């Protein structure tokens, strides 16, 4: 793959391969915490937001970063494009950019660790790694949590555990997720059964950008729904087991496609490649669908295209990444045109 010229805000894992690649692209553990005695960010005034930001960043700097190279970004000092690019890379959540006052993010030295301050909760600790490494991301996030906790007093209730702004996070405050590429399950229509089974197992299924986002490019983010009444270890091992099952289903579906109707598979992926090669402008969602088809063709060795990481290419053609590449102020049409060019360049076509 040609070296992507797309700018990066800190998501080093995008181009890397981990266990379960190319079906499991990345995994994440996120811990939500709040500081005792201060209103949650949603109802906090400017002064309280400044106070909580100062306390959390101080704790991160003293206990987590120590002498290592953590970078702190204050939301109000970033451009709209920089904020949106961080969301496209999953360094911050999509809603982080909604309100900038009093918010910040501390980003670890190219290790997938970050601490978001004053988004929905005072503290949102995040660890992301390529592939399925659930225990590792949990340990990394848990370590940051324990370190911050030596400096601050968290809101904790003996009965319901760590208190969060939205009760959907109360208890452990732990949400663990995986980003999966499941084109064969979608094409064969089997994904319906998978989603239904996941729903019954207490697993959310969402699109590339989590809550409220549509599914595009056959990229699915799955995460635990319940955060209360389960231990962190249970949540982690359950997700690990569930991801293995989903990945098995995708592998089976790919084998079936190859065995039962190889012409259909070949036709689909070549059509995808054909559009990528010839298009002169392309929207984001269409591009994700095309990248997914081409990637399926590469994985099944049907297409003579060199290996690429779908997450890296997908994020690289995100509207804000392209806008940054074009100089910040480009209109939608210009972005769509650039996307078609950028896509061919990153895929070496």
């Amino acid at each position, binding site marked *: 793959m040609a070296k992507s010229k797309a700018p990066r805000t800190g998501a080093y894992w995008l181009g890397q391969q981990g266990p379960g690649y190319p079906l499991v692209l990345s995994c994440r553990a996120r811990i939500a915490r709040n500081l005792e005695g201060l209103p949650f960010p949603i109802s906090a005034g400017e002064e309280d937001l400044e106070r909580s930001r100062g306390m959390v960043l101080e704790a991160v700097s003293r206990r987590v970063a120590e002498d290592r190279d953590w970078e702190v970004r204050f939301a109000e000092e970033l451009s709209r494009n920089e904020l949106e690019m961080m969301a496209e890379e999953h360094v911050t959540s999509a809603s982080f950019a909604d309100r900038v006052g009093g918010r910040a993010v501390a980003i670890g030295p190219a290790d997938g660790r970050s601490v978001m301050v004053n988004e929905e909760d005072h503290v949102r600790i995040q660890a992301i790694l390529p592939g399925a490494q659930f225990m590792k991301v949990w340990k990394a996030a848990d370590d940051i949590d324990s370190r911050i906790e*030596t400096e601050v007093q968290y809101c904790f209730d003996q009965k319901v555990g760590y208190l969060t702004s939205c*009760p959907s996070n109360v208890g452990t405050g732990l949400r663990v997720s995986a980003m999966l590429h499941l084109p064969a399950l979608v094409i064969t*229509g089997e994904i319906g059964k998978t989603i239904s089974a996941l729903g019954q197992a207490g697993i959310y299924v969402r699109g590339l950008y989590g809550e409220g986002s549509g599914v595009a490019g056959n990229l699915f983010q799955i995460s635990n729904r319940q955060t209360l009444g389960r231990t962190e270890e249970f949540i982690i091992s359950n997700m690990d087991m569930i991801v293995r099952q989903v990945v098995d289903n995708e592998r089976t579906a790919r084998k079936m496609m190859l065995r039962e*109707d190889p012409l259909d598979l070949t036709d689909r992926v070549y059509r995808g490649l054909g559009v990528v090669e010839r298009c002169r402008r392309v929207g984001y969602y269409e591009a994700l669908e095309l990248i997914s088809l081409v990637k399926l063709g590469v994985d099944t060795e049907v297409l003579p295209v060199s290996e690429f990481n779908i997450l890296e290419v997908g994020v690289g053609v995100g509207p804000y990444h392209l806008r940054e590449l074009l100089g910040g102020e480009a209109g939608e049409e210009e972005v769509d045109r650039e996307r078609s060019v950028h896509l061919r360049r990153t895929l070496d076509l």
Partner: protein
Amino acid sequence: MRIAAAGSGGAMNIFCDECKKNIATVFLTKISGNEVSKVQLCEDCANRMEETTEAANLLAFLPQILSGLQSAEQEHLVEDVLSAELITCGLCGTSFNDFQKMGFLGCEGCYEAFGESLEGVLFDFQEATEHIGKIPGKASESARLRKRLVELERHLERQIAEEEYEAAAAVRDQIKEVEGKLELEAERGKE
């Protein structure tokens, strides 16, 4: 296995599924319940649909639970919910009604202020009401004991289910011991 026909075979359909006139540029995979379908739309239709469906999709999960609660036949339950809406947190001023609308609590005090009403929401959403995970390093001794107690009780249930009665008796003793310590802690707290 049957390969879904949409978009395969014959000429590739390039037109919008909705208006069938404009060229489709927006490609979506829709999940509704167990059904997954692909739709392709032109920009105009996509924008129009986004306005109607986004709002519906983005509604927080919590109000759904609460409206489910309200549809329950027992009248007193409806009354409970209605009176609960009026409760306001003394610390931050968030009302239960605000919480129902936004899905967010204003501060730690809301958990206590909304008490039972919130417990119902928690149970519906989390299918549990008690934390058994990590506790803060600085947490009180009783938090540790409570966690240990829940663990032991679960252990006991498992052993009874597996008819391991001797082991169960030993766990029962441990439970009594922890309960004793908890009482001591409670008394110490009162002093």
